């Protein structure tokens, strides 16, 4: 419970002051789109690891995809992002009928900050790579939104792991993309920092269609409007139903206990726990 208090304090702190202007802008500019994704084959270094993958992302919600490592979660995300080439028969369709290319933001497991650039410049890199005018005000507002207003001119090497991941989150949101793909963003962080950043992600991704990969059942239950488990032999996708729309949830609630056990069961972890 103590941890939960910390997160609500963090959210409260971020809702006031410099962030409000940013919040308004975000809600105005972003019209949520849904995605239906069909990937007949996912391969990793030439070997087929997953077949017939189908998932629907509801507009403006967070979908969590859970699974053990090596099941092909990252490859799925990279295929959607256009980093990996799509196999024949693949279909990624947006609900508004337009192409998804250029409407995606991708956040990697690693923070991938440019070590020679300040936190602020790291937020501007996407615009620079496209040759667009940089929007320093928006970048500063976003840094403030992730609680790093005073660190704008710091180099990544002087920031802690949690701070770096927050800069990375801010950079992901900098493009104001309606679709956000997130790959285990907090797996390398300590439990308390992770808990705070989950709340932050839920708040900042509100209104965007988000697909988040994780191997942490607690994280999935906390953040996912929809939760899917990708596991088994052969691997299949199983939805976790009736979770309710309100996020972030408190995963320690007794009502979620059953869901937690269901996830562990699907992941085949029950046996290990003895």
């Amino acid at each position: 419970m103590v941890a939960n208090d910390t997160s609500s304090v963090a959210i409260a702190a971020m809702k006031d002051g410099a962030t409000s202007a940013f919040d308004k802008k975000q809600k105005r500019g972003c019209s949520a789109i849904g995605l239906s994704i069909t990937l007949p084959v996912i391969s990793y270094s030439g070997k087929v690891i997953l077949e017939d993958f189908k998932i629907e992302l509801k507009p403006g919600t967070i979908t969590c995809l859970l699974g053990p490592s090596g099941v092909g979660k990252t490859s799925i995300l990279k295929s959607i992002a256009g980093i990996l080439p799509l196999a024949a028969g693949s279909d990624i369709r947006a609900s508004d009928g337009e192409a998804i290319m250029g409407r995606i933001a991708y956040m990697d497991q690693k923070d991938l900050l440019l070590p020679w650039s300040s936190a602020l410049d790291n937020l501007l890199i996407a615009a620079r790579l496209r040759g667009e005018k940089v929007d320093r005000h928006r970048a500063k507002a976003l840094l403030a939104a992730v609680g790093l207003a005073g660190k704008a001119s710091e180099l990544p090497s002087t920031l802690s792991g949690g701070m770096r991941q927050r800069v990375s989150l801010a950079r992901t949101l900098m493009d104001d993309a309606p679709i956000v793909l997130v790959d285990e963003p907090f797996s390398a962080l300590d439990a308390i920092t992770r808990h705070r950043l989950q709340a932050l992600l839920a708040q900042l991704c509100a209104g965007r269609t988000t697909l988040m990969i994780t191997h942490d059942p607690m994280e999935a239950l906390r953040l996912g409007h929809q939760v899917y488990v990708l596991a088994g032999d052969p691997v299949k996708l199983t939805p976790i139903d009736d979770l309710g729309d309100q996020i972030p949830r408190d995963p320690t609630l007794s009502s979620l206990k059953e869901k937690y056990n269901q996830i562990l069961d699907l992941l085949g972890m029950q046996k290990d726990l003895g």
Partner: protein
Amino acid sequence: MAKFLRLTITVSGLLGIWWLVVWATSLPKFILPSPLQVFIKFSERYDIIFENAVTTATEILLGLAFGISLGVLSALAISIHRGVKQWVMPVLVASQAIPVFAIAPLLVLWFDYGITSKVVMATLIIYFPVTVSFLDGLNRTSSDWRDMASVMQSRSKSAAPMRLFRLYRYIKIPFALPALASGIRVAAAVAPIGAVVGEWGGSSSGLGYLMLHANGRMQTDLLFASLLTLTVMAISLFYLTDYILKLALKWQPDQETLT
């Protein structure tokens, strides 16, 4: 302070050994002059040494400028266009296989007695380490960052060459700078060799010329004075380069210290 003390001990130690050898073997001055004799010669002829040192320094700096520029451009060309590599790489390797001493007289024949042939020589030996190390750096940009850039650029409306240019400008080149810096360090260390070898091939001024001249006249003390001047120049050049590069690449967290 500790650094200064260490330097003093090293220098006086070396001078002491030199002195000891002269004293023990009592070799004549024209074979091995004592440190004091060399110092006296230096203070007598500092004007002529200085004049020739300026020539050599000019050759070194121009050689560095040309060698580094050419190396950087070649590495970029090879990295952008794979085909260039197959054509340029054998030439690059061959340019290193040919002993520079062998082509020094040729360069004099082609480029005259003046400074040009020495600059060409220095450029030749600087070019290779700079090209290879920068190319290495450019090829080693982690795929994670390339993927990130490709997602970010996917909504870009500009033409492919402009996208490529910005990828190099903002991601690939900065990531390759530490590798380029290593190449430049090597270049700074070998540039004086290039200039002096060039002067030995035929010249009318420079420290290499002065050394040959002094050697021919049994003025071994002048030879030593010139040699020591060249050494001090080379060491200063190296450490100055190292210092500037370190300052410029401060962001590098795992920076090695050479000094």
